[in-house]
């Protein structure tokens, strides 16, 4: 019943609880054999950073993550999928993003989570700005070419 899976997508300022999100996907079910979670956290860059501030494009952020999730559901036999992306000011050590992918067998969940993160990095409309530990405002984080290449590797031949 892969077609029946509706991904849960949330764009929020608040933190999330990884264990609670896994339980929300698996609770009351006995058909799921594998759950892969990826959490992205804010690093302090060797003490240089006091926070990251994430700006986003309301409306498009939800829509774009929805499109990426739909592609993942088309490509892998997932039984559940949750994507949460935070915005606003986030301190080092705090969560930024969560992907939870559930499937019967591990490979689909691993690959789908990996695919989702690669696409989120290069296509979800979020921008990180640095706040420095010395109290000054840092610059905007620059996009890495490596992230674009990471997304490109999922393209099927001929695309």
């Amino acid at each position: 019943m892969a077609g029946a899976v509706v991904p849960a997508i949330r764009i929020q300022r608040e933190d999330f609880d990884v264990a609670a999100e896994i339980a929300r996907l698996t609770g009351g079910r006995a058909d799921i054999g594998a759950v892969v979670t990826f959490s992205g956290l804010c690093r302090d860059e060797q003490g240089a950073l006091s926070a990251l501030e994430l700006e986003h494009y309301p409306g498009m952020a939800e829509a774009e993550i929805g499109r990426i999730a739909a592609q993942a559901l088309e490509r892998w036999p997932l039984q559940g999928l949750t994507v949460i992306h935070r915005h606003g000011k986030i301190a080092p050590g705090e969560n930024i993003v969560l992907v939870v992918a559930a499937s019967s067998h591990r490979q689909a969940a691993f690959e789908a989570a990996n695919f989702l993160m690669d696409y989120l990095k290069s296509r979800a409309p979020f921008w990180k700005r640095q706040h420095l530990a010395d109290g000054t405002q840092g610059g905007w984080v620059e996009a890495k070419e490596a992230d674009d290449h990471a997304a490109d590797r999922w393209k099927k031949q001929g695309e």
Partner: protein
Amino acid sequence: MSTKLIYFAWVRERIGKPEEDVELPSGIETVADLLRWLKSRGEEYENALQYPDVIRVAINQEHVGHREKIAGAREIALFPPMTGG
């Protein structure tokens, strides 16, 4: 018909406003035309759009390339490469 332009991150900061409604002059058919026209609107636009190739664009909240036609666009967003995740 006026079109809503929305700016994010350093594009927003350099232009100095988060959004505006503009009347597009005739002859502006593609995203590339729009970027070229905007760039001529003043120093702040010139500064934000100095390297048009790096600017990412969404029409009606979907990513598009610079050759995309903008006819019928209600909302066009301009922003730097994304750094979420």
